[in-house]
């Protein structure tokens, strides 16, 4: 999918300051269980309506200076990594390019490589889909990024598959949807074979003997499968992390299974404590089946936040942010996702349409992940109409209520406490924070919330390792002494 709504806060009840100020964390700590260390990451504010561009402080989402500022803030705050989403076709609605949200973004690999020059410790995570790319090329790029950053690369494997996006690529979008995870799995397995095709000791470069490579077959691989039939020699030596850290973002049963079998971390979107705990238990529960342990997969949901001097002030600010995120026009466009009809004649300050959604195959909005979140639009529409009637909400108010909720709202102390509660009660291992402002949206968090987490002993004061695997507490994969592909090749 293109220009996805990564970071859009989930639907459902928000984690308000009071609700989340649970005693659980302290009691657990008191019970002797060591405090979990929180992982924090920074999601560069992306191309959707959560990013507020009408604010006078909103800067460029394209210029490198924005990325550099954002990355430096994250590194100053000792975050684990910076995260970039990906979209490969501009969204459309009603047959025209969508023009209300921030749009336009640079190439993931190129930005991350440049960011490696202006940071020293920060992990660099890039979303790269497995449908419109080829394993040799992507493995090369990630291995290269890992070298050029001294071991800080991570790959968020997504499974965008649609024909709409495919129109920009050779594959032409003819990958059937039911094959996207099978291609993703095989893509990742193939890339892993490539990463493992060098063991790390092949380059001798001995001037005297004239031996540069110890093994003429360094990088040899053979992969024959349903999606890829490739063989040859990988031309990037083993990188500092061996392989990049692997993320998965996708929520379906298949997506969770893929993560449990193959990922180091899962990027999800569950903003309530209960939903988070449920998801956490479900995904961690799948690990054993794949011969993996509890700590081999981190759960890092997306989270949005609004800070104020007091909780009340933060609530007020949050409401203001939501109004900016959901203009009247945006609300109508959002409703069109579910109704799948042109609703431009409706007044955003008026009641919801009393007609039913068009169940037709062709969606009015294209290239938007959230379109597929509504699996039963008729039921959703009915639910929304009932809620709007019961609470006397206009279209815009309803959309603000159901979609525009921030995950964490409050004073720095409240937000620190809430985040810590989520982590200590196993709703998450940490969060990928999505600010609503580019590029300064993280500054306050770094200056106010991070020190409070550090005081509580749940967040690092400084980096203790050099690689992203170090920051995340993940083992460095051993080079396989004799990869299968090598045996097959010889």
């Amino acid at each position, binding site marked *: 999918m293109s*220009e996805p709504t990564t970071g859009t806060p989930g639907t459902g009840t928000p984690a308000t300051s009071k609700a989340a100020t649970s005693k659980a964390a302290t009691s657990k700590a008191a019970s002797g269980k060591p405090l979990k260390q929180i992982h924090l990451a920074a999601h560069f504010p992306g191309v959707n309506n959560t990013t507020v*561009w*009408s604010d006078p402080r*909103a800067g460029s989402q*394209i210029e*490198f200076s924005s990325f*550099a500022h954002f990355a430096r803030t994250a590194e100053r705050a000792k975050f684990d990594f910076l995260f970039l989403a990906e979209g*490969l*076709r*501009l969204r459309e609605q009603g047959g025209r*390019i969508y*023009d*209300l949200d*921030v*749009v*336009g*973004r*640079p*190439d993931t*690999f*190129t*930005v991350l*490589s*440049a960011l*490696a*020059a202006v940071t020293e410790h920060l992990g660099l995570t890039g979303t790269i889909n497995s449908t419109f*790319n*080829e394993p*040799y*090329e992507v493995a*090369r*790029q990630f291995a*290269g990024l890992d*070298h*050029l950053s*001294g071991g800080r690369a991570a790959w968020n494997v997504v499974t965008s598959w649609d024909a709409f996006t495919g*129109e*920009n*690529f*050779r594959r032409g979008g003819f990958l059937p949807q039911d094959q996207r995870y099978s291609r993703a799995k095989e893509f990742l397995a193939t890339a892993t074979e490539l990463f493992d095709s060098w063991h790390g000791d092949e*380059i001798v*470069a001995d*001037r005297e003997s*004239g031996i*540069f*490579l*110890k*093994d*003429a077959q*360094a*990088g040899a691989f053979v992969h024959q499968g349903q999606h*890829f039939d*490739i*063989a*040859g*020699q990988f*031309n*990037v*030596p083993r990188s500092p992390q061996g392989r990049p850290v692997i993320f998965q973002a996708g929520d379906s049963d298949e997506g969770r299974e893929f993560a449990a079998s193959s990922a180091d971390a899962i990027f999800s979107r569950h903003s309530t404590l209960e939903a988070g705990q449920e998801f956490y238990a479900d995904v961690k529960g799948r690990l054993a089946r794949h011969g993996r342990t509890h700590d081999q997969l981190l759960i890092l949901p997306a989270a949005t936040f609004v800070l104020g001097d007091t909780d009340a002030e933060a609530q007020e600010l949050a409401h203001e942010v939501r109004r900016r995120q959901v203009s009247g026009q*945006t609300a109508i466009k959002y409703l069109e996702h579910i109704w799948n009809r042109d609703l431009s004649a409706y007044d955003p300050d008026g009641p919801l349409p009393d007609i039913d959604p068009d169940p037709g195959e062709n969606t009015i909005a294209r290239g938007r992940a959230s379109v597929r979140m509504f699996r039963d639009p008729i039921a959703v529409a009915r639910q929304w109409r009932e809620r709007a009637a019961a609470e006397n909400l206009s279209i815009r108010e309803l959309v603000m209520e159901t979609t525009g909720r921030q995950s964490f709202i409050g004073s720095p102390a409240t937000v620190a406490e809430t985040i810590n509660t989520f982590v200590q009660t196993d709703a998450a291992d940490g969060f990928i924070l999505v600010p609503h402002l580019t590029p300064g949206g993280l500054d306050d968090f770094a200056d106010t919330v991070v020190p409070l987490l550090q005081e509580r002993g749940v967040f690092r004061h400084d980096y203790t390792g050099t690689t992203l695997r170090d920051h995340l507490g993940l083992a460095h994969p051993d080079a396989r002494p004799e990869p299968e592909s090598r045996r097959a090749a010889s």
Partner: protein
Amino acid sequence: MFAHPPLHLAVALDGTGWHPAAWREPGARPHDLFTAGYWADLVTEAERGLLDFVTFEDSLGPQSSHLTELDGRTDQVRGRLDAVLVASRVAPLTRHIGLVPTVVATHTEPFHISKAIATLDYVSTGRAGLRVQVTARQDEAAHFGRRTFPPLPAEDRDTPAGRELIADLFEEAADHIEVVRRLWDSWEDDAEIRDVATGRFIDRDKLHYIDFEGRHFSVKGPSITPRPPQGQPVVSALAHQSVPYQLVGRSADIGYVTPHDIDQARAVVAEIRAAQAAAGRAEEPLHVFGDLVVFLDDDHTAAQDRRTRLDDLAGYAYSSDAEVFTGTPAELADLLLEWREAGLSGFRLRPGAIGHDLEQITRGLVPELQRRGAFRHTYEADTLRGLLGLARPANRYAAATA
């Protein structure tokens, strides 16, 4: 009034240098090839010499001394990093020098390449280019598994089948460049309006579908990356024969050519100018750069001796598609100034051993050319187009609607 505009100079970076035994030289850093520091040091040195740009070699398979297959050698540098990533990694550490990575049109997606080079232009604030390359290597094709190529030994390159394959690869490369260029123009410069009054972030009438349909791929567009700072980053290609000369004439801003004497240089330039005119671009600036491998020392014999020593280490006498120059920076300056009479507007020098010859270029050749009034004393522009005297092009789609 000078008879000539100043020369343009580029350096082609590849491993430890172009001689296969260069990594064994005392000044070589073979263990650093996969570190950012190595590339940052080289590009910083090139910038110190006020060079127009550096190119970064690349390939989608291990290096080989054979053109179409692997050689199984273990006594030469093998393995390399993605050129776009290397260029991007050094961009924030430099300020003026152009950064021109190699991209392989045969196996990559033009949509990805377009946004990658546009992004390189953003991270370098206007210093990006690319050098398009095709490949008929069977082993590289097998890394992608999408197509196969017949074996193409040197002696078969002039058969009908060989000519057809090469023509086909270059036709695809031309399509690739066309798509990349259209995508750069698919956003007009002022498409982002941030109009609070109407709630519109962009003026969608200033975004354009490119609707490219070709034999090997079709691309809808628009790009997801707005038009880069230079509008069109600089497109370059190495060309040895008529088919690639056509590509340069039709699609490039710079062609690198490999004449071995001034008469050949004259003939090649004439052929490229004819191709350019045939493509209807006679009025557009198009640079033709001569490529030379260089072994430089303050003393002519020292340079000769060094080359011989490297040949002995390699076990064979090094030769190249390009002319190999061995001598002093002053002698090289003589040659460059002579060859420019053939219509070459610049040179891309391939250092025989980077650890030694790069500084010979930046600290020997450059001052020599400056003394002769043939090279800049300071960077006169902040963008690569600016350094090359190329105007920022108008947007083809904006022109169509104006």
